[in-house]
């Protein structure tokens, strides 16, 4: 056990830092053409005609496609296929692809693109989910509910909700409004497709879900799955933004078929903004009922989310906006109504901490309000209500390891909470918030649940190198490194012996890919089992060589030896060579299938996971009351990811999540005027700059999870949600104003401060103990 638990740098970092890692846009093939997609300037319109004759006669143009060539709908969820590679008969959002061109150079393709003539007839545009939820004159998709533009409606109720609110001593209500935000990974999406003369299609793409793309390519293009190959090169960040099969990936493949040449499409930054699939613009109402002692009695959540023009992961998002509020507190009664509306905006989808961020914000601000009503410290209120470990929530989530109370204790101690809460000068404040998140979804959505969710294959040949084949997608988070650590640890070899092969659907066993924070837990378990199966072969070889019992050998430092008799040892390579006699290269396989969890009601599987991460954050802020600027000075981030396999990478996930969460809280916004996106560039979409990042202290608190690989749980998404409400609660502590309309841009904050000054003055809220005086 030398690799797991240590701060091991990314195995692919030496290539990345030297500029030699190959991303999809870096791939060039002999005879390769450049692809360009002509996009709709209309948000909702019937396509009356498309004239490509002039474009086709432009020098260098090899192929032109319109939507009627491959009209087969697709989508990441099997139940909501409502996207096509190019618009068919009508366009549903500004930026949707209408025509695609392949030409000998990108300049030629762009020249041709300017000569495409499309005639549109405008249809009513829907930019407001509230309007989409009512009767509409024009349905965006035929599959929308009844005569509305709702994509999905969920209603759930558990326990005595009405009684809880009727009998409650305290009820707080929070109405939150959240602008849409987007992933803004630095690498714009890129794809190379090569439909070769042997009738096989190969696609290299910056994707988080190679096997979903594999399936979509086969279904839409009508090529049998076994003749489609998807390769995932190095991916320049995802955060959910590369987690669907996307139109441009299918378009590149279709253009390659038409032109009989390889085709590359690299999206421009503006196109990435129109692709979106980011976090839903949301309005929610959260009501919390509590008794006089501050025990939670009931939770009532209503969420209306703006799905944009396609389903994507939206059905899951609709569930997650509700069901992911049943922790980390014990909720004895819970009601949820969630609605996701189609609008004529770029589709929303899954973004880091999918579906949980906005509801979490309203709940955690609500907990702060409740604590104030009860005259108790908000950390104390939370401690009274945490779920214990090894319990089941009322909607059937199985909670196993859970160190949320210790997380809160750690964050409180490190931040010196008690001496600061309500005690800092006006304009300075401290706030707390908690959270939890799934370690992968229990229900596989790619195929029937008979197959494992993750499988890992290993191969060792005469050179002693261990080749790992996995379909899990490293998108920068470091899953290849985690794989290498686990395999090296079990086999007792140096990490440099392990080579993680690029995801290639020809050689990698099916894996659901990188989303829902599933990779470390599921792939990690599969990898461990594969490595243990391989170790068994090496132990047998060692037994044959030494005449000692196989099961007694332990593997470490490139040798297999008996712990009680270290002189009885076989070098790793000797064991490999002995095991290979008469069989050749060694192979092994391991897989992971999550246990069946959850009730029998509709939607019971949504949010079920083999394990959950937990978090408690404290943030300290300084508000410039003259300029309305919120400066986040410190975040103490206590996180329970079980036993971390690689603390260096876990810290990276926490710090990156804080950057992204603070962005959503303080400035990031997909700014729409009607259906028109006003800021489709990194210049105008404002993320947090290096100078504005707070000091972050990561506190890894947690016990080994009973089912996680080496006790580990997820760390990729759960670190995000608590930072937004922790800062908002700190702002309240600083100036006594609640903000429920994100993002908290300086103009908004300044106006609220000015209004409060006119009302009678800006003061700090009272201490809990001062209320009665």
């Amino acid at each position: 056990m030398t690799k797991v638990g240590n701060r091991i740098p990314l195995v692919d970092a030496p290539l990345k830092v030297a500029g030699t890692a190959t991303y999809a846009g870096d791939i060039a093939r002999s005879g390769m053409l450049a692809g360009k997609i002509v996009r709709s300037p209309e948000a909702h319109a019937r396509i009356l005609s498309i004239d490509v004759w002039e474009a086709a006669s432009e020098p260098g143009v090899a192929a032109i496609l319109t939507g009627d060539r491959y009209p087969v709908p697709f989508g990441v969820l099997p139940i909501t296929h409502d996207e096509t590679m190019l618009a068919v008969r009508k366009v549903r959002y500004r930026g949707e692809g209408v025509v695609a061109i392949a030409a000998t150079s990108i300049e030629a393709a762009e020249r041709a693109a300017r000569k495409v003539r499309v005639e549109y007839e405008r249809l009513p545009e829907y930019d407001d989910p509230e309007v989409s939820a009512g009767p509409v004159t024009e349905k965006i998709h035929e599959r929308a509910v009844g005569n509305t533009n709702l994509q999905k409606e969920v209603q759930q109720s558990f326990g005595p909700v009405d009684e809880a609110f009727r009998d409650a001593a305290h009820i707080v209500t929070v109405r939150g409004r959240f602008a849409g935000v987007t992933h803004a990974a630095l690498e714009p999406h890129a794809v190379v497709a090569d439909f070769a003369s042997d009738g096989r299609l190969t696609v290299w793409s910056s994707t988080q879900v190679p096997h979903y793309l594999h399936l979509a390519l086969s279904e839409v293009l009508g090529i049998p799955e076994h003749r489609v190959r998807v390769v995932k090169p190095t991916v320049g960040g995802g955060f959910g933004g590369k987690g669907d099969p996307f139109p441009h990936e299918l378009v590149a493949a279709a253009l390659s078929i038409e032109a009989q040449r390889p085709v590359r499409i690299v999206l421009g930054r503006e196109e990435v903004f129109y692709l979106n699939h980011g976090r839903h613009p949301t309005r929610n109402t959260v009501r919390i009922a509590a008794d006089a002692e501050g025990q939670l009695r009931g939770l009532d959540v209503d969420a209306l989310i703006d799905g944009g023009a396609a389903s994507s992961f939206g059905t899951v998002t609709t569930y997650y906006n509700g069901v992911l509020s049943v922790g980390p507190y014990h909720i004895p009664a819970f009601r949820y109504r969630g609605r996701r509306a189609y609008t004529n905006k770029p589709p929303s989808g899954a973004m880091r901490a999918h579906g949980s961020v906005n509801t979490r914000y309203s709940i955690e601000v609500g907990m702060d309000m409740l604590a104030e009503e009860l005259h108790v410290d908000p950390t104390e209120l939370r401690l009274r209500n945490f779920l214990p470990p090894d319990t089941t929530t009322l909607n059937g989530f199985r909670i196993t390891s859970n160190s949320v109370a210790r997380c809160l204790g750690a964050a409180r101690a490190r931040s010196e909470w008690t001496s600061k809460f309500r005690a800092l000068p006006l304009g300075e404040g401290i706030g707390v918030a908690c959270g939890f998140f799934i370690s992968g979804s229990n229900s596989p959505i790619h195929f029937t649940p008979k197959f494992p969710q993750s499988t890992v294959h290993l191969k060792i040949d005469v050179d002693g190198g261990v080749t790992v084949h996995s379909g899990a997608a490293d998108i920068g988070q470091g899953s290849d490194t985690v794989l290498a650590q686990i395999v090296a640890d079990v086999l007792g070899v140096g990490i440099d012996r392990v080579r993680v092969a690029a995801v290639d659907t020809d050689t990698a066993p099916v894996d659901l890919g990188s989303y829902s924070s599933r990779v470390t837990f599921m792939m990690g378990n599969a990898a461990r089992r594969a490595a243990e199966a391989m170790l068994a072969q090496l132990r047998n070889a060692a037994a044959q060589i030494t005449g000692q019992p196989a099961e007694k050998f332990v593997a470490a430092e490139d040798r297999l030896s008996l712990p009680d008799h270290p002189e009885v040892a076989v070098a790793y390579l000797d064991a490999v060579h002995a095991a290979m006699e008469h069989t050749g290269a060694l192979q092994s396989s391991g897989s992971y299938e999550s246990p069946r969890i959850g009730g029998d009601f509709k939607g019971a599987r949504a949010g079920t996971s083999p394990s959950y991460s937990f978090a408690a954050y404290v943030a300290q802020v300084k508000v410039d009351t003259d300029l309305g600027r919120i400066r986040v000075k410190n975040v103490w981030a206590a996180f329970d990811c079980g036993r971390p396999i690689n603390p260096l990478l876990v810290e990276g996930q926490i710090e990156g999540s804080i950057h992204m969460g603070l962005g959503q809280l303080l400035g990031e916004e997909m700014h729409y005027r009607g259906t028109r996106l006003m800021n489709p560039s990194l210049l105008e979409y404002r993320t947090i700059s290096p100078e504005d990042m707070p000091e972050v202290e990561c506190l890894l608190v947690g016990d080994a999870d009973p089912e996680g690989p080496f006790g580990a749980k997820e760390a990729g998404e759960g670190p995000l949600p608590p930072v937004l409400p922790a800062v908002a609660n700190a702002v309240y502590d600083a100036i006594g104003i609640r903000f429920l309309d994100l993002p908290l841009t300086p103009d908004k904050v300044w106006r609220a401060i000015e209004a409060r000054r006119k009302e009678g003055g800006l003061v700090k809220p009272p201490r809990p103990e001062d209320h009665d005086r």
Partner: protein
Amino acid sequence: MKLRVNGLEYEVHPPPERLLVDLLREDLHLTGTKRGCEDGSCGACTVLVDREPRHACLTLAHMVEGRDVTTIEGASSSFGLSSLQRALIENGGLQCGFCAPGMVLAVEACLLRGKPTREEIREAIAGNYCRCTGYAKIVDAAEKVVRERWGP
């Protein structure tokens, strides 16, 4: 026109509108220089022109005629990765890696100007967008190099 890239002399004939980033990536096959935003806001295309950082996506190829260009492929030497590159690897100063080429060159340019403070390092990378790390581990890595080079 002639230019030097990573110490080697090249003779190229780019069309007038060709950007430096495309000259490097498409004509010279130096794909380490990345394109992230096309408007100078992300810094992924940062290269050094006569030791000064420049956005290759906002620089016409013809503007570097006769100049000395360093790309990420020139940041390491025959002795291996630079101390900054090694520090970034060891400190977790990159994740997806797409910002790393520009980030390395932006910090190297800062180090060329003399011993920087932590604030000066943050300023030096203010034009380099990273969506993964939250920047702290990048600044930590740069500070490690500063300590190695100039002492604490």
